[in-house]
């Protein structure tokens, strides 16, 4: 079968009808069901889909790197004319050494912690039997734009940041000058600013080396930015394929449509519309599938979808969709905008919670680390305050100080309804404990794995709201209903629940005591986009019904924008900008905010501004003098910024900013992104 528009002489990678099963307890369970696609030489091909759809398995199978219980049961994978499914171990080793390379998600795990960087990079060349390994290693590190490669080669992996580690891994992957480079979620663990740098690097290397790229990512924006063509995977099949821009702008498969609509797009806000979710769930590995794998979740499904496997329909120039109803895609209903939902009870201006002059200094081997410095913030009743910033900017420290997990430094205060709270939670009244609760990032860690859902929630009801017995059972039912858990979930242990369900339990627990303030610390970053959409909708609903205030931390700026009324941008523990969400996003922004925004890879393409931050966030134990951001600021003004600390002042009504550049000048500067681009590089 040929899913390809034209036959290349030798495609970089040609996957044909690939079937892969994992043997679980002696029973083979199908994971890939006839995956076919072709990566042309020099082309960047992206695979997207939610977790469990078979993206990584496809890549592993194509290189024959499957785990021990994985079996290729049909089809073939041809790399540069060689069918890898029939290679001996020796031939396979030679192929992997010379023609393909792979970059994994976690660069920390890909590097040997006990060897110096230099040794490891040199080894990449010596295994190829090349001489002058050291010079070549230096050149390789130079190529991935590592400044001062000789010094970096003397270091150990743990002494490098995640972004640097990933560059080193990429340098090693390129050592053999591969025809095909497989990147499996290469930037998932990295900050958006670092991600942008790494993606820039990959793109320029691709131009230099002419290597074809197979990029696996769950982030649709990354795929759109990087790839020429994209394959959308679902339940072990490629359901849609085509040029990335066209697929994202004009999806022709119901799953792709759903996936794209789950995302809070630029400008989407919770008052305007709910996020669309994909009904139902991904079939489990090994499950018997209906004729069309997506039929159970599809809003266009008809009788024929259950009886006949959908054909591969050409829906344009080199575009394919595996659907019976490609002509009816436009009929997929948009989520209705319920006018009642638009009413958001807010605008009570009195702050529920105030941080006054909050600093937090940690001691690290005798050295002070200034995690927070003089933060003043108000949280109003029923509002969502978004906290954004790179990792290390103090978001989580701020949240933990609010919660009383650690006390602020002397002189700072957390004030709830006019009453100063004790620094740590044990010094707080039960009323105060009840008032401030948290939804953690990682539901696996947040829920005790040996307790049932029932225990987790009723215990919180007892401790926070003082409700026991029959009353607790009633509240459990109503809380369960609010977070959409069914009673059959109550007796399950967290391990039996999916990520989204676990997060619902976590949310129910936080809301057990009818809290005034809920801290949401990256509550959706561990979830797939369709589940994320459901959780965000849930949080918005709960806020509307309960009138709670949220402190919402996320690295995903579109998510923050969707949920937040106001946004505080943190850098090195200092508030750089604070204002209504729309103002902060629409600008004029603080230069740091501007950089954060332009680092976000967007599914819509066309980022408004393209400024890049150089390097990493400086160490909090020795913050730069003057404006802490001056070392990385693209709009650095010599003589001012490194001397004087800019005060956080109101530049517009409700919009505070800590920058020496007057707002009118920022407005002018940011209106002309092209000029800035040249200035930044």
């Amino acid at each position: 079968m040929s899913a390809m528009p034209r036959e290349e002489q030798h495609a970089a990678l040609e996957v044909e009808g690939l079937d892969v099963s994992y043997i679980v307890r002696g029973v083979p369970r199908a994971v890939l069901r006839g995956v076919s696609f072709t990566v042309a030489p020099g082309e960047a091909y992206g695979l997207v889909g939610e977790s469990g759809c078979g993206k990584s398995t496809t890549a592993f199978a194509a290189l024959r790197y499957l785990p021990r219980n994985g079996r290729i049961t049909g089809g073939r994978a041809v790399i540069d004319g060689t069918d890898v499914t029939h290679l001996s171990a020796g031939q396979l080793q030679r192929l992997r050494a010379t023609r393909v390379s792979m970059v994994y998600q976690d660069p920390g795990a890909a590097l040997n912690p006990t060897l110096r960087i230099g040794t490891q990079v040199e080894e990449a060349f010596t295994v190829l039997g090349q001489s002058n390994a050291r010079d070549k290693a230096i050149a390789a590190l130079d190529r991935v734009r590592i400044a001062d490669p000789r010094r970096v080669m003397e270091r150990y992996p743990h002494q490098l940041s995640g972004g640097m580690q990933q560059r080193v891994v990429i340098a090693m992957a390129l050592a053999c000058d591969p025809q095909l480079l497989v990147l499996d979620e290469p930037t998932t663990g990295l900050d958006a600013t670092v991600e942008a740098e790494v993606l820039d690097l990959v793109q320029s290397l691709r131009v230099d080396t002419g290597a074809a790229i197979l990029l696996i990512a769950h982030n649709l924006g990354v795929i759109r930015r990087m790839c020429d063509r994209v394959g959308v995977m679902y339940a072990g099949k490629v359901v849609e394929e085509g040029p990335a821009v066209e697929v994202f702008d004009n999806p022709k498969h119901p799953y792709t449509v759903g996936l794209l609509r789950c995302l809070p797009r630029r400008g989407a806000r919770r008052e305007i519309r709910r996020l669309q979710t994909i009904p139902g769930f991904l079939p489990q590995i090994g499950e018997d599938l209906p004729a069309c794998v997506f039929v159970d979740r599809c809003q266009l499904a008809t009788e024929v979808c259950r009886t006949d496997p959908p054909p591969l329909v050409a829906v344009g120039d080199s575009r394919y969709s595996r659907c019976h109803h490609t002509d009816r895609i436009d009929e997929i209903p948009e989520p209705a905008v319920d006018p009642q939902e638009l009413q958001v009870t807010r605008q009570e201006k009195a702050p529920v919670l105030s941080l006054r002059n909050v600093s937090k200094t940690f001691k690290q081997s005798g050295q002070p680390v200034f995690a927070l410095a003089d933060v003043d913030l108000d949280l109003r009743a029923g509002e969502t305050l978004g906290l954004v910033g790179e990792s290390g900017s103090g978001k989580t420290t701020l949240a933990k100080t609010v919660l009383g997990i650690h006390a602020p430094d002397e002189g700072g205060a957390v004030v709830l309804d006019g009453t100063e709270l004790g620094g740590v939670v044990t010094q707080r009244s039960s009323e105060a404990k009840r008032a401030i609760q948290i939804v953690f990032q990682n539901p696996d860690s947040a829920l005790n794995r040996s307790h049932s859902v029932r225990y987790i929630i009723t215990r919180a009801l007892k401790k926070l709201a003082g409700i026991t017995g029959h009353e607790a059972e009633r509240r459990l039912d109503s809380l369960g209903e609010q977070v959409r858990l069914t009673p059959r979930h109550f007796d399950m242990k967290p391990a039996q629940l999916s990520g989204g369900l676990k997060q619902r339990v976590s949310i129910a627990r936080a809301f057990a005591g009818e809290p005034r303030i809920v801290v949401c610390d990256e509550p959706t970053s561990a979830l797939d986009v369709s589940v994320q959409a459901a959780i965000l909708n849930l949080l918005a609903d709960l806020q509307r019904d309960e009138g709670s205030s949220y402190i919402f931390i996320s690295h995903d700026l579109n998510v923050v924008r969707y949920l937040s009324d106001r946004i505080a941008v943190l850098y090195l523990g200092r508030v750089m900008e604070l204002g209504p969400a729309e103002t902060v996003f629409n600008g004029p922004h603080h230069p740091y905010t501007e950089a954060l925004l332009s680092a976000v890879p967007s599914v819509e393409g066309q980022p408004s501004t393209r400024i890049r931050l150089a390097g990493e966030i400086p160490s909090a134990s020795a913050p730069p003098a003057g404006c802490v951001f001056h070392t990385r600021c693209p709009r650095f003004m010599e003589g001012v910024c490194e001397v004087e600390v800019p005060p956080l002042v109101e530049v517009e009504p409700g919009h505070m900013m800590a920058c020496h550049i007057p707002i009118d000048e920022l407005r002018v500067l940011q209106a002309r992104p092209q000029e800035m681009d040249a200035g930044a590089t």
Partner: protein
Amino acid sequence: MGDPALLEPPPPGAIQVDTTSARSTARRETVRLLMRRPEFLIGMGILLFWVTCAIFGERLAPHDPQLPNPLFSHAPPGSDNWSYVLGTDRFGRDVLSRVIVGARDVLIVAPIAALLGVTLGTLLGLVMGYYRGLLDDVLSRVVEAFLSLPVTLVALLTLVMLGSSTKTVVLVVGVLFAPIVARTVRAAVLSERELDYVQAAKLRGENGPMIMTREILPNITGPIIVELTVRVGYAIFTISTLSFLGVGIQPPSPDWGLQISEEYSMIINGYWWTVFFPSIAIASVVIATNLVADALQSVLQR
């Protein structure tokens, strides 16, 4: 309502059964994994053999273990037309019968001592690991000091001072084992307390003892069970040694350690069987518990 993406499935590999039996299913899975490990089967086989001996002692023994037979003093194995399969001791008592019945005392005393040690050690480890700080520093030093002492020697001295009885043997061995267990439990607590659920419990106002016992303890049962098994093995070894030294299980019990102690001075005359077979018995029980502990470790601490 109207939010459709509700009933997300359990993750692949999660057990999908009637929820009420989820716990028993998990347990069945553990048993199934254990049954696939040969070291577990071998260890369990040996242990079951000795437990049967301990329970049915006299009924399995071919002779009365206490009955002397002056005609057959120090008869070698196979004497009297294989009536004395493993020979007799200096009083003419049947070695096989004594080895069979001798399992009883040590197999009761050692597990109790181990259980006591693990209980004390778990409490100590929970407190050290959960509260950290000065308390942990001080207790850790004490534990380390304890660990540097030879258990048998300290036990011997204490028992000589306190006077020996089964109760004191259990107590002394249990207390001496506690620091070793505490160290293992502390390490497990340290990694658990960093998880967010502990923080969530603090934020809803749970107190320390509640967090330690109700939140953390259920999640560290794996290492504790392994530790218990290992300790049973060591307790058998220690108590046999103490019996050999005369301060453990007291005569007239046909305890293995005691048998060795009564007869070891004679082996120079060629009467090896009186010492050899009880020694084999001790070694086999200790090895068997270690095999079981190994298997448990690899299954429970995946």
